[in-house]
């Protein structure tokens, strides 16, 4: 009993040093050497300043930008969460109803792609479905004085198909798409990764 107690104590310390300190630091070192961009969060910089991460969503509300999905945390990247609303909670149903009404003003009578009116799990979903992007094309074309086909071409450029052809779902990165919309308007000053 006493011997096992001493062993328990020493084992905790020794394995903590090995698995809790050496292991994560070695992985950090290897990751920083092998995949420095991914390991640091794929930050996007413009004129030397960080303007976001490629894979962390941001909120957009102006008519000239593609809108991200609803977020329960307002795209606060220190507070990731979903709405936690259950399927029969009237707050959820009312919220969806309100968003549907607003969005259908753009495309009267058309059913709204479901991801555009449902809050993501992380509250930071960087992507929308191609259907949700198409739903917004006409509004953006109007606001920016572009033709719908021009906007559609941009959407297509930023549509990621299923990984390796079959994994996951097709999707459009909202931040990158909006940055390329801005690049058309301002011409030269492009965001760099």
């Amino acid at each position, binding site marked *: 009993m006493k011997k*096992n*107690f001493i*062993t*328990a104590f020493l*084992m*905790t310390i020794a394995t903590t040093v090995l*698995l*809790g*300190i050496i*292991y994560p630091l070695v*992985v*950090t070192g*290897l*990751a920083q050497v092998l*995949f420095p961009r*991914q*390991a*640091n969060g794929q*930050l996007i910089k413009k004129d030397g*300043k960080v303007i976001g*991460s490629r*894979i962390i969503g*941001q*909120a957009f509300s*102006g008519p000239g930008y593609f809108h991200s999905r609803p977020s329960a945390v307002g795209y*606060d*990247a*220190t*507070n*990731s*969460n*979903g*709405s*936690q*609303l*259950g*399927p*029969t*909670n*009237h707050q959820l*149903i009312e919220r*969806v109803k309100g968003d*549907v009404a607003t969005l259908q003003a753009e495309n009267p009578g058309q*059913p*709204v*792609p*479901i991801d555009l009116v*449902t809050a*993501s*799990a*992380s509250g*930071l979903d*960087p992507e929308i*479905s*191609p*259907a949700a992007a*198409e739903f917004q094309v006409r509004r953006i074309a109007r606001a920016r004085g572009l033709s719908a086909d021009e906007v559609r071409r941009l959407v297509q450029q930023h549509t990621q198909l299923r990984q*390796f052809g079959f994994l996951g*779902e097709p999707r459009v990165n909202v931040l990158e798409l909006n940055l390329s919309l*801005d690049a058309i308007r301002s011409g030269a000053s492009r965001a760099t990764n």
Partner: protein
Amino acid sequence: MTVNGWLQILLFLALIFAVTKPMGVFMARVFSRERTFMDPVLRPVERLLYRITGVDEDHEMRWTEYAIAMLLFSVVSMIVLYLMERLQGFLPFNPQKFGAVTPVHLAFNTAASFTTNTNWQAYAGESTMSYFTQMAGLAYHNFASAAVGIALAIAFIRGIARRQMETIGNFWVDLVRSCLWVLLPFCVVGALLLVSQGVVQNLRPYDKAALVEPQQVQTTGADGKTVTTTVTEQTIAQGPVASQEIIKEFGTNGGGFFNANSAHPFENPTPFSNLIELFSIFTIGAGLTYTLGRMTGSQRHGWAVWSAMAILFLAGVTVAYWAEARGNPLMAGTDQHASAVQAGGNMEGKEVRFGIANSALFATVTTDASCGAINGWHDSYTPLGGMVPLVNIMLSEVIFGGVGAGMYGMLIYVVLAVFIAGLMVGRTPEYLGKKIEAYDVKMAMLVALVFPLVILTFTAISSVKGFGTSSIANPGPHGLSEMLYAFTSGAGNNGSAFGGLNANTLWYNTTMGLTMLAGRFLMIIPMLAIAGNLARKKYVPPSLGTFPVTTPLFTVLLIGVILIVGALTFFPALSLGPILEHLLMAAGKTF
């Protein structure tokens, strides 16, 4: 449901089938202390650890000493984690300058949670824990509690395999070999694969990004007035995530670095990272069925158990996928049909890159095993879609199962199945040459009864008392589901949640802490008692009257016992929660 969705699900099962044998053979060699290809690197580390900690690697333990060593290690490492949480303000790797984890009952709850392999989280990682606590406290316990689980499963298997012996192995040796051979090498490779997909791994302070389009945000202040503020910045939480992410899945722990767990783009950025995480959750559990067959000399028995697991997995994922793909009929004016340009279905609390198939698959896998990681919020699943994870945990997570815990949980069911088969043919039941007698069945029933007792008692108290119901986020039958899920998750050491429930209260932190400790240790001790008792017994060669445990008939009987013992216990509670909610949702009712 789509063809592509099913393709992804079946591909996943095929990968698990493929890894079962190599993983199982490898573990059998590791725990029989035979040579493996990693010995040149790992043997010196192992010897060094024994020298530091004073372990005699040739010493064999009876089940009582094995249990005491396991308990001492768990208590000591739990106290160290508690102190680390409380003292993190004075420790290194804390760029965000987080102070002590408060209140005290939250720190206790978290320490109990990670020591028991539950990883129930009543806190949000990115706003509570320093990088040091995450690495040396939480991620460390992901290794330690997983290694304890594997050690126990191996001890149980030895109990079945050994004849007329008093001992079942050495806890310290099993612990160290689990960590060094089974867990660590896989994690180094897996972590780097995850980083390649975009899981972050750094020690930087959080980044500040200037928003592309500043946002007007309306908030209601304490005085009830609405204030409009302009948000121009996004603070992006960082950290050593990948090294913790991989062991979180591989050790079926489930505690996320971030609050949103594997839904967070920095924890699970692509469909491929999602597949790696899913694969990691089942690998050890599947492998242990082969180890069981190999160490007991009945490989076909191992596969019979594997088949029962695979059938129950497919049943669960089918229901969850079907329910989520059907969507929510209350959301009028939306397009929920799956097509080439959208996943459709119930997307509340899910991520676009995973869609419906991968979210339903993840929810099933994480609760088949005692993992508890999530890539979508179970609270926002449809009533039946959310019932699948709940029922999976209620079946004691034996479908591939938590690392080690799934195997010994399943072996308890096997003992009961063999016993029931024995009753039906009127003979003393035998299991792989060992007579199953009164003592063994009593201990197995103890395990089977502690679990629902803890869950139903605490849920019942919570549902009639203000300190229980005031934490509910979703009214109606869903509220009962939230409380039932919490205690089921705690007792099953799963750690996933119906996340709306505000669990960071004195009542829930304390009772959940106790539930997790009971769910772990009150199961382990009777289980080790059976192992010790079996090891002592004489071998009885199979005769004509022996019920074979290698046939499809056995697989069917085993599934039947799991469903009867596990699910019927909870049917009344389920019918008042998710089943009632499903019927009311179909009738168009909201709460």
